[in-house]
């Protein structure tokens, strides 16, 4: 006698587990502790909200009138400071009549960055577009050709400087970090040692001292008559600094790739560089997207340190705009909130982009 195997047909779960209502019930009112916490937090929020709204909106002064702002101090925010000083905060010491130039240049650069984030545009011609756009950027910013007056780099400032420093050091530091990470795992002792020394040396010092060295000490070692613009020196400093940190993140990803992947690629006849480019790096970098993006965001904000070598990027330009003006200096906090919002906008965009990338890269792992 043999028993007949009868498979049981699959059926849907008895209680709905997906959707808004089940989510709220499970996460906000799951048991009495979480119900209590939810209620307490909502109450606290409702208690604070009116006061905040009153300060930020209802009693706030939006006109650029220092006397009115002074009268409303302590009760309402003075957004007038932004209305009065925004050109100085955004563009720093760049000549007032020429400020359309950094505006166009920055829009160009941001547009290029957005385009570069879209996969459909990852074609060889994108590199050429980058070359042309960077040429246009520096022509607009520096001038000196085709009818534009020269604006020396020490007059550059504000948001254009922040975006330029951040995006160029990110674009340069990322490939460098991949090379250094590969170098640290190289079979060749000279390359390996060089990469180890580079990473350990850079990680051992704060960014501020790297910038100081780039700005004040480096020129002392140059032959007389040869000078390199401080902006370039600072850019190289940030790039080298960021690359050392990112190299270690990339190396973490490289270590997670099973040896069998490399062996399979070798057995198929792929060369070292083909193996790295086609097999190892796509998998290793996909694993470290959150860490890499963490670093990108931190580079963006670290550019504010260039103020100490007298380059007035966004944060520095705010100080420039308010410190010397006794009428508006009291409203620095509103100014800081303004640039905070600008920083947040960029960093949040980067963070969302990283999540989107992760989701795309996970396609091959879903069953």
């Amino acid at each position, binding site marked *: 006698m043999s028993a007949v195997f009868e498979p049981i047909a699959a059926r849907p779960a008895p209680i709905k587990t997906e959707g808004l209502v089940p989510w709220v019930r499970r996460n906000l009112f799951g048991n009495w502790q979480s119900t209590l916490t939810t209620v307490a937090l909502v109450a606290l929020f409702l208690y604070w909200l009116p006061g905040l709204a009153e300060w930020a909106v209802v009693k706030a002064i939006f006109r650029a009138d220092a006397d009115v702002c002074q009268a409303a101090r302590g009760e309402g925010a003075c957004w007038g400071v932004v209305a009065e000083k925004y050109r100085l905060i955004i563009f720093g010491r760049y000549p007032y009549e020429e400020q359309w130039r950094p505006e166009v240049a920055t829009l160009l650069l941001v547009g290029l960055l957005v385009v570069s984030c879209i996969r459909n545009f990852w074609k060889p011609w994108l590199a050429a577009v980058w070359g042309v756009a960077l040429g246009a950027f520096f022509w607009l910013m520096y001038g000196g050709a085709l009818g534009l007056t020269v604006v020396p780099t020490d007059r550059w400032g504000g948001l254009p400087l922040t975006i330029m420093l951040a995006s160029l050091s990110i674009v340069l530091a990322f490939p460098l970090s991949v090379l250094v990470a590969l170098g640290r795992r190289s079979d060749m002792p000279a390359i390996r040692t060089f990469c180890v020394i580079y990473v350990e040396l850079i990680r051992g010092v704060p960014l501020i001292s790297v910038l100081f060295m780039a700005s004040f000490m480096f020129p002392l070692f140059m032959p007389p008559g040869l000078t390199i613009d401080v902006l370039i020196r600072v850019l190289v400093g940030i790039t080298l600094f960021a690359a050392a940190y990112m190299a270690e993140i990339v190396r973490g990803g490289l270590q997670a790739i*099973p040896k*069998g*992947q490399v*062996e*399979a*690629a*070798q*057995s*198929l*006849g*792929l*060369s070292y560089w*083909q193996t790295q480019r*086609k*097999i190892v790096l*796509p*998998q290793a970098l*996909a694993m470290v997207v959150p860490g890499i993006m963490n670093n990108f965001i931190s580079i963006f904000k670290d550019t504010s340190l260039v103020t100490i070598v007298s380059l007035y990027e966004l944060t520095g330009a705010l100080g420039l705009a308010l410190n010397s003006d006794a009428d508006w200096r009291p409203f620095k906090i509103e100014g800081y909130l303004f640039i905070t919002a600008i920083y947040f906008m960029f960093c949040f965009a980067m963070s969302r982009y990283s999540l989107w990338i992760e989701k795309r*890269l996970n*396609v*091959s*792992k*879903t*069953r």
Partner: protein
Amino acid sequence: MSTHHAHDHHIITFDKVNKWYGNNFHVLRDINLNVARGERIVICGPSGSGKSTLIRCINRLEEHQEGHIVVDGTELTDDVRAVEKVRKEVGMVFQQFNLFPHLTVLENLTLSPMWVGKMPKKEAEERAMAQLKRVRIAEQAQKFPLQLSGGQQQRVAIARALCLKPKIMLFDEPTSALDPEMIKEVLDVMIELAKGGITMLCVTHEMGFAKAVADRVIFMDQGQIVEESNPHEFFNNPKSDRTKDFLSKILGH
């Protein structure tokens, strides 16, 4: 360079090959082995006997320190071009499949023809589809490896290795990581391949496979070739006590 000129029908020659891992682990000891063109060899032995290392020396995934290995007229040395030439002629299938998880099945197969063989994409895809049909898995071409069962993945791995049209196929315990129900589908593909006349070296404990297709069975222990003979001799009339002991353990139940 020694005697291999006199034996042109030998596609692989090991001449007194020795290999060490580190300073002390002597993993291959005085290996002499000639493989004829089209010959099908099964290598078995206890774990740690050096059988995997032996076949991994053939495409230089492992380097030997003494002796000579000549593959299809090319001696394996530090010369990168010699290694690249040999790897184009030798396909390999691994115990853990080692498919590239970030590429689709089709991309896994076209990678080497396109980048090593410099073949246009369309031609590489046609060749890949032909190989996928051969291992009866063409309908999965657009899936990612992790979406397939173990047996299917190993068949894809075999198809991938065949895409460069190798003269020699190496199998390193190809069924050891598979669920029992999937072993047969992989062995069937291997048997079919063996009948096609390709030179084959297979490390396996599937003795049924050895009896069905092998021209020669090699038994290794402690880095040495203990015994080699045709399957009939090997299973029915083993010469050394070590072989008898091993066979009693794997066939004994």
